[in-house]
């Protein structure tokens, strides 16, 4: 089965690759433009968001990390050969695979030097401007793999969803984005890694003029009571490892219950794994946007 799937993947990659063979393409990466010698056929990927977007484009990676963390990537990715962890690539496995391109990003972005002797490495990290960078990566993959048309289709669908979500959010007040870790909380403002929720929705921060860290800021429950947002969007760090419902338990207290968000039942628990682990991946983005749209339209 595994071999068959791999064969199919390689075959489809070759079939699609034929028109673009040997034409050098320049694509935009997180570290600036990179020129690829030809269309890659065998790509090892060390970033979950990258796997997500590549699969959306119909490209099945030839090598993936040992753990994919998110369930929605499907069987093709799960069956691909394993090439180590995000933090520690198994260099022998990667070399044995003989890929013609290696994609790193986010957690694995420090591994570029170690992997460079094996094959060309591109860093496709998605920073804090999540939506814009996700689109840039999508376009770059489309160009690199000769799938421009599909990439344009996906970009159009993403734009349509963004418009729909922004329309649903119109006039809905202020928002606060929270990450819960056991009993502790961090707030993520407009400039942070989850800040794109603010800009995508057009919902202003519940407390304006606050400087925020990319990695979130530790806050107390008093802070939530004081900011009194109309919407609270919760990313449950605990649930990413199967501790379902722990964020709801964390927020179940009189200080949170007194906020406008709690009174109007506008505390939204986002699926944590896609946004936390595959943040900026195409399917991840579409999934989160769908959740936001559903909550706002209620």
């Amino acid at each position, binding site marked *: 089965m595994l071999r068959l799937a791999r064969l199919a993947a390689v075959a489809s990659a070759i079939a699609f690759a034929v028109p673009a063979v040997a034409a050098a393409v320049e694509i935009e990466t997180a570290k600036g433009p990179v020129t690829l010698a030809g269309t890659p056929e065998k790509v090892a990927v060390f970033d979950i968001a990258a796997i997500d977007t590549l699969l959306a484009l119909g490209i099945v990676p030839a090598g993936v990390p040992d*753990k994919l*963390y998110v369930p929605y990537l499907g069987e093709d990715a799960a069956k691909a050969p394993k090439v180590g*962890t995000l*933090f520690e690539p198994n260099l022998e496995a990667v070399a044995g695979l003989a890929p013609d391109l290696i994609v790193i990003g986010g957690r694995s972005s420090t591994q570029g030097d170690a992997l460079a002797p094996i094959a060309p490495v591109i860093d496709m990290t998605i920073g804090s401007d999540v939506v814009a960078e996700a689109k840039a990566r999508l376009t770059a993959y489309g160009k690199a793999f000769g799938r421009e048309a599909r990439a344009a289709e996906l970009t159009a669908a993403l734009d349509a969803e963004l418009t729909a979500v922004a329309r649903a959010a119109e006039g809905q007040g202020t928002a606060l984005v929270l990450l819960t*870790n*056991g*009993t*502790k*909380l*961090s*707030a993520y403002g407009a400039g942070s890694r989850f800040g794109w929720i603010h800009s995508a929705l057009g919902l202003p921060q519940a*407390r304006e003029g*606050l400087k925020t860290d990319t990695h979130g*800021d*530790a*806050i*107390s*429950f*008093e*802070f939530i*009571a*004081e900011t009194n947002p109309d919407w609270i969007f919760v990313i449950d*760090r*605990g649930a*990413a*490892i*199967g*501790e*379902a419902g722990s964020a709801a338990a*964390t927020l179940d*207290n*009189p*200080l949170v219950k*007194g906020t406008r968000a709690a009174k109007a039942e506008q505390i939204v628990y986002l699926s944590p794994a896609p946004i936390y*682990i595959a943040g900026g991946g195409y399917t991840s983005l579409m999934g989160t946007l769908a959740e936001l749209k559903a909550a706002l339209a209620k």
Partner: protein
Amino acid sequence: MRLAALLTLALIPLSALSLMLGAASVDVAAIGHDPQAALIFWVSRLPRTLAVLLTGAALAVAGVILQQIVRNRFVEPGTTGTGEGAALGLLAITLLAPGAPIIVKMLVASAAALATTFLFLRLIRRLPPREVLLVPLVGLILAGVLQAAVTFIGWQTDLLQYIGTWLMSGEFSGVIAGRYELLWIAGAAAALAYVYADRFVLLGLGRDAATNLGLDTERVLHLGLAVVSIVTALVVVTVGMIPFVGLVVPNLVSRLMGDNLRQSLPVVAAGGAALVLACDILGRAVRYPYEVPVGTVLGVLGSALFLWLLYRQPAR
């Protein structure tokens, strides 16, 4: 005695400040007629202040007890792997039974902490008795080994940040009514240590001397270890690891008033409470309305104090 009075006096304005300072802008004086102010006071401000006081006092007392047991001044629960042991236990229960109630998680963490403390004792019994600096070194190594295990498992399971936020960075930002009450047990354990204060002093004379003086050394030893483990585990699980309190406070107090624990333990407790409270208030104020973990503040302040102690008071 004068010192005890002084510290108690310092605790009053600190506690008052702690009750007044928070992200919510309410007038605490108005709790009588403003329901929002009353809510903030009873649910957030008072529990947090109590949690800080209990934590500081219990950690400082646990530090003294451990120093008596291993007969070395440069040891604290944080430098013997007890905290890391608790973290390892908590990690294990989080992975094996993610849905377990918090009380079960705390019990597992306490058991792991206890086991770690016993391991530490077994290790240091093999050391030459005159080499006092080896004791904290072995503790640091044990803590490092356990920390490595925690990091390894955390990495494999993508739980590093989860552990880091919950356990390793000691902070009180998550403390509200209903989330800190286990610290009363830590406080009670520290109070129990006071009841047996004299026996810990005897134990500090060494095993043979203590036995000759008619002390049931095994029992006192086990009691002391139980106090240290329970305090460390409950603090780690409730607010996270808080370094240095159990080290600098007992040493400072010992320098000022000697080792008569019957007299000095209350001062140690008050000193620990005052230090942690001052650091927590600082942590609340520095990036207001966001929070800086008290563990971070103490880490900076504590390392400076520790270096000063090492410089002023070389190994006996």
